[in-house]
């Protein structure tokens, strides 16, 4: 289809480039008109080729076929409905334009006087109803297939936050230990046109969600703050992530690969910047990866309370700040008044350390400031607070250690 489009484009371009000198030799009024018509025609061709360029350059013109049984069924259904609509459209518009060209006064058409016909009106009520029934049958079948939940091999909780996704492998053997955030990794320089945009512009994240091939994976979808929507077009699945509600989706992917999607429910400022990346691994590879992740996570959790130096805190704090804080409080700590307060020179960052820690752990109810105690571990919390108190020109001159966070949390 795309290749054909390119071919057509080449021809039209040749037509545009080759001027019809024959036409230009004539000079009478009639031929001037003819030339104008010709110019108009060339402009039309140019516009059409502009449209075709868009068509040819796009990866896909149509819905993606996808890589799951469900996505293929959805694609087929889409094509059936689409082609029925095209057929009806050709018929109806054909009659309309035939009438427009033939029943015009300038051609001497005289108006008929008929103004109703019960038979005709019944026919064009009943026939469309029958066509709709024909459409409803496969639509119902596909929908029923999609609702075939249960019997899953593994479950993953997907939780939407402003503006990132959290994935938690629900695995009671390991106390649901493996959980991480997935944040867009497209650099700000690319967004602000200061550097060349990469191939996966706005579609790259720091941590992929990894799932195995050929296993039924169940996603439990919810949100922490506002409504988001989790969509992977190639799997043919999309569901809203609603705070306080647990929605269910499932998929079985046969082909290993990396599949990308985006949040599809307006969720505030960075709605356009919370992509979804799912990496499908062959089963054995996935199992090995999962085992290593779980064991290294267990090791990390044991060492969480250990004290860190100023440099270590600043280094980790810088990373955490960039991922979790900078989208609202800005990379320079200046914030966006009045919704997102500045950290640079703020009373909190210069005030008592424990108040600052508590604010980050518990958030500020009723505002966009989240309770990060539920998202970050004590080391990350201590590091980011320490960083905030010693960056952007702030100089609190104290230390925040993971143990302080643990003590504060236990004290509550």
């Amino acid at each position, binding site marked *: 289809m795309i290749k054909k489009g390119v071919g057509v484009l080449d021809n039209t371009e040749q037509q545009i480039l080759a001027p019809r000198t024959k036409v230009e030799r004539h000079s009478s009024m009639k031929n001037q008109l003819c030339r104008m018509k010709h110019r108009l025609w060339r402009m039309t061709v140019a516009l059409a080729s502009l449209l075709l360029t868009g068509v040819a350059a796009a*990866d896909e013109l149509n*819905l993606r076929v996808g890589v799951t049984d469900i996505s293929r069924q959805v694609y087929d259904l889409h094509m059936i409905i689409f082609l029925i609509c095209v057929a009806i459209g050709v018929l109806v518009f054909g009659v309309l334009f035939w009438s427009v060209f033939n029943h015009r006064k300038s051609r001497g058409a005289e108006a008929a006087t008929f103004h109703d016909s019960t038979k005709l009106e019944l026919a064009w009520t009943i026939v469309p109803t029958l066509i709709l029934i024909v459409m409803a049958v496969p639509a*119902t079948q596909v929908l029923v297939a999609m609702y075939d939940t249960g019997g899953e091999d593994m479950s993953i909780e997907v939780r939407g936050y402003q503006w990132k996704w959290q994935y938690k492998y629900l695995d009671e053997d390991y106390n649901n230990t493996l959980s991480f955030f997935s944040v867009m990794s497209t650099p700000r320089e690319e967004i602000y046109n200061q550097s060349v945009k990469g191939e996966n512009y706005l579609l790259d994240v720091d941590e992929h969600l990894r799932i195995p091939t050929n296993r039924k994976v169940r996603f439990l979808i919810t949100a922490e703050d506002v409504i988001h929507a989790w969509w992977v077009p190639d799997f*043919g699945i999309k*569901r809203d992530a*609603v705070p306080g509600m647990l929605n269910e989706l499932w998929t079985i992917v046969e082909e290993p690969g990396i599949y990308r999607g985006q949040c599809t*429910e307006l969720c505030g400022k960075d*709605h*356009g910047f919370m992509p979804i990346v799912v990496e499908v691994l062959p089963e054995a590879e996935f199992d090995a990866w999962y085992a290593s992740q779980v064991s290294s996570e267990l090791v990390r959790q044991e060492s969480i309370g250990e004290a860190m130096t100023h440099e270590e805190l600043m280094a980790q704090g810088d990373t955490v700040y960039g991922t979790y804080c900078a989208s609202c409080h800005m990379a320079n700590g200046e914030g966006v008044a009045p919704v997102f307060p500045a950290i640079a020179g703020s009373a909190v960052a210069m005030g008592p350390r424990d108040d600052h820690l508590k604010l980050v752990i518990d958030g500020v109810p009723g505002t966009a400031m989240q309770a990060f105690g539920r998202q970050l571990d004590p080391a990350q919390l201590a590091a980011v607070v320490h960083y905030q108190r010693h960056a952007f020109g702030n100089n609190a001159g104290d230390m925040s250690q993971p143990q302080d966070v643990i003590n504060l949390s236990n004290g509550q």
Partner: protein
Amino acid sequence: MSEVIHADHHDDHAHGPAKGLKRWLFTTNHKDIGTLYLWFSFAMFLVGGVLALVIRAELFQPGLQFVQPEFFNQMTTNHGLIMVFGAIMPAFVGLANWLIPMQVGAPDMALPRMNNLSFWILPFAFGMMISTLFMEGGGPNFGWTFYAPLSTTYAPPSVTYFIFAVHLMGASSIMGSINIIATILNMRAPGMTLMKMPMFVWTWLITAYLLIAVMPVLAGAVTMMLFDIHFDTSFFNAAGGGDPVMFQHIFWFFGHPEVYIMILPAFGIVSHIIPAFARKRLFGYTSMVYAVASIAFLSFIVWAHHMFTVGMPLAGQLFFMYSTMLIAVPTGVKVFNWIATMWRGSMTFETPMLFAIAFVVLFTMGGFSGLMLAITPVDYQYHDTYFVVAHFHYVLVPGALFSIIAAVYFWFPKWTGKMYDETLGKIHFWLSFVGVNVTFFPQHFSGLAGMPRRIPDYPLQFADFNMISSVGAFIFGLSQVFFLYVIIKAIRSGQPAADRSWEGAKGLEWTLPSPAPYHSFTHPPAVKDEEVLG
């Protein structure tokens, strides 16, 4: 009743319209108020259009060039709100004011003082809503559908002004509807039975009932938001036992009939213009009336098709899929009837007819994409992508908006006694037609390819379609400025128009002089079938 009208008429006969600004502030005349509504809606149309062009300028290329995401969200939100509540709806109310009394053979609207109030609320409502864009923290940024909790807990402080503005708009709409119903049911000329009413009157009667039914629902939704924000209730807050999804059910119980509020009067307009220029009576008048009534009824039982991805049980999904598909039947009947009206007519193609035919074709295309969206399993792929944006712009721009423009050209000679310049009108049509398609047709493709709506920046594979779309938007926007020029030129220096300004125009309004007298029918006219039915 007729005695009262008679007395009024004696009073007013001596003095025509008041002079100066007072005429417009205190007017109770249906034509003056109609004019106010139409100019107001045009002003809002230009404001909403500028916001749309800010959106399209930002989306011209990938990356952030002109505006920041938080401002972009305010643009999409206010573009939607202003176009729906400020441009399309008041334009239809303006047309209703101008036309309904003339079409039913009445001197004026039934409730003239309320008519004045329902208009003059609007500038304040929109003044308040637009002022929020200049407040600290910005204006509404949660989409025109203002889903909770983004519009409650996470909203900018100005949301309270937005809520109050929506209340005012609702009050204005309800008063306008009561007035229209009272006029239609009480003030028809003797002999004009319900089934002899002009289609525009029929569609507005049904639309007015829809408005009265759903505007209080919207008022309820925003009041619950107000309570959640200021009085610590938890209607839509899951943490307090509320339900964000309930907001969507309430909103769309208002929202889907609202969509038809914006299209039913358009059906009425097109049902006048096509017979006039085909010089042939409207085909299937009775089934047209029943089709509009069926669409209005169905509009109340399809709302959750906007929420297929929200997580509903299978039975619910199936119900809303089937009921939504059913809408295609009465809508199809209307399209077939219009084509049958054209069939074996004696057609000419003046500007109103061009807009009306474009309406039939492009609205039907919006109908096809609507039918595709009704199919739940594939809607999962289309939902909240540019495919939806393309769909509803096809039904609202070459749908509702084209019908309004067609109506302005069609009845302009009756309103002003002057004829617009036909060549300029046709240029306006072709610019609009090309602009609208270049803008919105590529959005089908970007939607199918997976571009979510309401994003300020997009992955690279959507770049070409967005560029084409932006070019089209500027063509379309500038051609509406040209429309303003065509209209002003016609008001200033148009040729005098005949009383029956179009050869095939039928209806009581064409029996009046052009321009129509300040008080339409001071005595009830005779209702002849060949005049009111065509």
